[in-house]
């Protein structure tokens, strides 16, 4: 029964968000029922759209699974955007350097490069938090900004398609990357590519790491109580770095899949991070929260939010309601999810130790955490 109630809460939050969406639709002069129907058809209407939704869900699954890992270690990772970009850049460079390798080697290699790129970009705030006490919320946000500008620089200068210079058009994009790195389409006639099973496998992997390995045990122990973990001989600092690096590497994998699963088969920037990532670094947080910060539940949750994006795109075509509606709906879902008491207590319990890490017991000068919500 308790589980049923817990599962119902996100649904209620979603209903509340849709009620807000209905108000917005009415305010914009559209019929909300028609609007929701257009969104549903656009997201889940036929095999083609179901596939497109799955492809849209891939970065959300990966970022969401990564967020679940970091949250379980009481580390808040808001750097998904930057980590996606870092992974995409490293995988792009890899494909540019070794275009001739056969697909059986090159595809795993570019995906691995994505993992490494995102992992490095995630490890930086981890090191800053563990060894210099820098608040990871702030550092990950700042590293998002750094990553976007670095991407713009790379795509405008060193990595720009030589053709763009020749023609003088100077569109900031790479040349078409090696076809040997392209993720194969698995259902012909649709966009369903290898990225989808890879993302699902990665989410399962995140679950296995968290609950079936010594590393996961250490991360969860640190997430539960850094002081107790330290007393038990667990390297707390290294665990914080691992949590952010793992979280970042999954986002980086999403970046590689965005490049090599795209029709253009190249990396391109419009100057903003959302232009490349589709804001997956933020939307993945929404998917993870909706999935109860559990990597496996993040999979269906991400699929629903992928549907929100494809649905909103369809809505724009059919009823001329801007697709940005999806982003604002995501925000509303977050607000409702974190405001509902059950979820709030759960998140409160998961993140309780974050304060302990920031104010270790032996240095604590202030009173015990006053007024903390009793997490039951």
């Amino acid at each position, binding site marked *: 029964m308790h589980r049923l109630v817990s599962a119902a809460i996100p649904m209620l939050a979603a209903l509340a968000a849709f009620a807000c969406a209905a108000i*917005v639709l009415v305010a*914009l002069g559209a019929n909300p029922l028609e609007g929701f129907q257009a969104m549903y058809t656009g997201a889940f209407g036929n095999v083609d759209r179901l596939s497109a939704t799955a492809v849209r869900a891939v970065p959300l699954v990966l970022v969401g699974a990564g967020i679940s890992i970091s949250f379980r270690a009481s580390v*808040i990772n*808001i750097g998904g955007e930057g980590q996606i970009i870092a992974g995409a850049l490293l995988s792009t460079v890899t494909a540019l350097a070794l275009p001739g390798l056969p697909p059986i080697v090159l595809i795993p290699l570019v995906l691995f490069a994505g993992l490494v790129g995102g992992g490095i970009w995630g490890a930086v705030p981890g090191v*800053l938090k563990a060894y*210099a*006490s*820098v*608040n990871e*919320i*702030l*550092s990950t*946000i*700042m*590293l998002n*900004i*750094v990553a976007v*500008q*670095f991407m*713009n*620089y790379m795509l*405008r200068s060193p990595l720009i398609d030589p053709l763009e210079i020749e023609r003088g058009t100077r569109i900031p994009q790479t040349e078409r990357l090696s076809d040997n790195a392209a993720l194969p389409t698995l259902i012909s006639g649709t966009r369903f590519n290898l990225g989808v099973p890879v993302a699902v496998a990665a989410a399962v992997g995140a679950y296995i790491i968290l609950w079936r390995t010594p590393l996961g045990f250490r991360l969860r122990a640190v997430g539960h109580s850094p002081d107790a973990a330290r007393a038990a001989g667990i390297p707390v600092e290294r665990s914080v770095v691992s949590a952010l690096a793992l979280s970042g590497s999954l986002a980086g994998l999403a970046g590689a899949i965005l490049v090599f699963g795209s029709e253009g088969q190249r990396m391109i920037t419009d100057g*903003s991070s*959302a232009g490349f990532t589709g*804001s997956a670094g*933020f*939307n993945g*947080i*929404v998917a993870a*929260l909706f999935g109860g910060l559990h990597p496996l539940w993040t999979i269906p949750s991400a699929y629903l939010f992928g549907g929100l994006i494809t649905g909103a795109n369809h809505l724009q075509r059919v009823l001329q*309601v*801007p697709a*940005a*509606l*999806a*982003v*604002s*709906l*995501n*925000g*509303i*879902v*977050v*607000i409702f999810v*974190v*405001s*509902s*008491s059950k979820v*709030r207590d759960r*998140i*409160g319990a998961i*993140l309780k130790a974050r*304060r302990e890490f920031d104010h270790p017991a032996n240095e604590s000068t*202030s*009173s015990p*955490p*006053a*007024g*903390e*919500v009793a997490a039951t």
Partner: protein
Amino acid sequence: MSDFFTATVLFSTLAAGIRLSTPFLFAGLGEMVGQKSGVLNLGVEGVMLLSAFFAYWTALSTGSLWLAVLVGTLVGLLMGVVYGLITVVFHAEQGISGIGIFLFGLGFSDLMFQEKVGTPKFTSKLPSVDIPLLSDIPHVGVAFFQHSAMTYAAFVMVPLVMILLRRTTFGTNVRAAGENPESADSLGVSVARIRFSAIVIGNTLAGVAGTALVLELGIFQPNLTAGRGFIAIALVYFGAWRAPGVMAGALLYGVVEATVITWKALGIIPRSLSDISAMAPAVITIAALVILARRVKPPAALTQPFSRH
């Protein structure tokens, strides 16, 4: 480089820097008031975007800049009430609910812009108000005394916020709510009410920041703020939760941004490196956080929800 070190260029860069620091200063001071009461608001960016859009839309459709300022401010106030409900009444996790506000503001301002405006059009900008006599001083006048009313207001806010937090009962209560809410509660202070008020003040200032930004540029585009709201949050850490510190940080960012713009115009920074130079604010922030993180302490109860037992 020698082109840069002429009095005219230096002072006009300084003037631009002061102008650019205005939104940082409003938003940073607002965030500081909220954090002093123990509430982290990561939604500044979203509130700035919403206020910027509605102020812009008002200016575009009525032609009245004063009405635009009023609307932008009220949108900030309204978002303050919303965020107060989320964090104080519903005790939501502050780090995450702020991201919710950010996403909502990002999407909704974009949605409204496409729906109501579509193609970007310029509105009139805030006029510059020359201070009599002082604005005539060579160079110094350009740098300090030929700004818009919003810029002067931002700098007047610094002592006002200091007085509010240091010299009033409300300010004492705000600090108590942020340092030790339980003691504050036992002395009869309503922590919920104090935090709610502090959040409304903070978000209103974030709204003013968005308004100042858009009316300085005279045009809106989706994601206009481009991370400024997040940098404003970092400025509070940078300024060690003190108003003059926040001001110093805001000025530093404004001047760095202005210098980069001037250097680009003078060709000191080659075009190919302009993206690299755009990293400067974020990199400086990270460096400052590394240096300051272990030296300054945030309010002890920051991000901790409070409920009476």
